[in-house]
């Protein structure tokens, strides 16, 4: 979706403000929200892409006005309601009002370390890769209303395949409910001038990771 989360190239957000001696968490609740997200994710009801889409579909003013961990809180609230784990009335009340929904898996302390290691998103390929290193490709000009990892700032632009990463879970399909639908994933590199026009930094190159359905030969 063409949401405010898709920020590449936007103006007006001001300077980057690094914080000296920054703590890992700025308040204890931030750590709890991170842990809650990991614990709820371990139920296996949704994956990383569905979690992302839940945050992307927050109202634009809420998304832009919320800290990272507040977005994680609101995104998780959306998910637990959508998956029938928590009622809207319970969220409003701030406590359980109904018997807990049954879940297939439950996180235990012994399993917690496993949550901190990252799974692989690579899958066996059903077909050979369509493109190879050095091929010129044009990013599709498409504007799906669902989840996509094709940022707006590269749509319609021509780049070069720099690396073939293997066949990976396709986020657009997962969120659309089609399952993992693995596709070949490529690093595509663009000249800055191709993206940002004359007068932009001539030394700039920008790359993205792009799944095959995002690409046409150029």
């Amino acid at each position, binding site marked *: 979706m063409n949401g405010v989360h898709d*920020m*590449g190239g936007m103006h007006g957000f001001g300077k980057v403000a690094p914080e000296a001696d920054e703590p890992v968490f700025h308040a204890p609740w931030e750590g709890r929200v*991170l842990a809650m997200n990991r614990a709820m994710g371990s139920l296996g009801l949704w994956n990383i892409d569905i979690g992302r889409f839940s945050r*992307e579909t927050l109202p634009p003013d809420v998304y832009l006005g919320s800290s990272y961990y507040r977005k994680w809180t609101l995104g998780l609230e959306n998910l637990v309601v959508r998956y029938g784990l928590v009622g809207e009335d319970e969220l409003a009340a701030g406590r359980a009002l109904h018997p807990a929904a049954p879940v297939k898996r439950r996180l235990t302390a012994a399993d917690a370390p496993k949550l901190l290691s*990252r799974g692989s998103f690579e899958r066996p390929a059903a077909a050979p890769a369509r493109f190879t290193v050095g091929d010129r490709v044009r990013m599709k000009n498409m504007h799906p209303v669902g989840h996509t990892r094709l940022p707006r*700032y590269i749509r319609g632009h021509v780049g070069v395949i720099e690396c073939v990463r293997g066949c*990976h879970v396709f986020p657009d399909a997962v969120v659309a409910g089609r399952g993992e639908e693995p596709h070949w994933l490529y690093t595509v590199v663009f000249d800055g001038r191709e993206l940002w026009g004359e007068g932009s930094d001539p030394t700039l190159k*920008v*790359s993205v*990771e792009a799944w095959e359905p995002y690409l046409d030969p150029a």
Partner: protein
Amino acid sequence: MVVCTLCSCYPWEVLGLPPVWYKSSPYRSRAVIDPRGVLADFGVTLPEETEIRVWDSTAETRFIVVPMRPAGTQDWSEERLATLVTRNAMIGTGLALTPGEIAVTAAT
């Protein structure tokens, strides 16, 4: 320079949780269009002819920058070189420390 314009993808397993600035709208919006401006916010200026490469982490692939070896460290061991490497140098918003800077840090 490594960024995630769509969310805040970051190599947690290697670098830990990301700093707030990495997840902020200013960084996510500007890194791909004005990386030199972003570097200036970190007090870093590169020669005009130095090529800038930005990696937008749009998939589950994660990236870190291998910092350039500072001058005067040719005979340093790997362990000693590692003391010059900062988190920001591995994100690409800073250079590795110089032997002079590490000496100052050690003295304070």
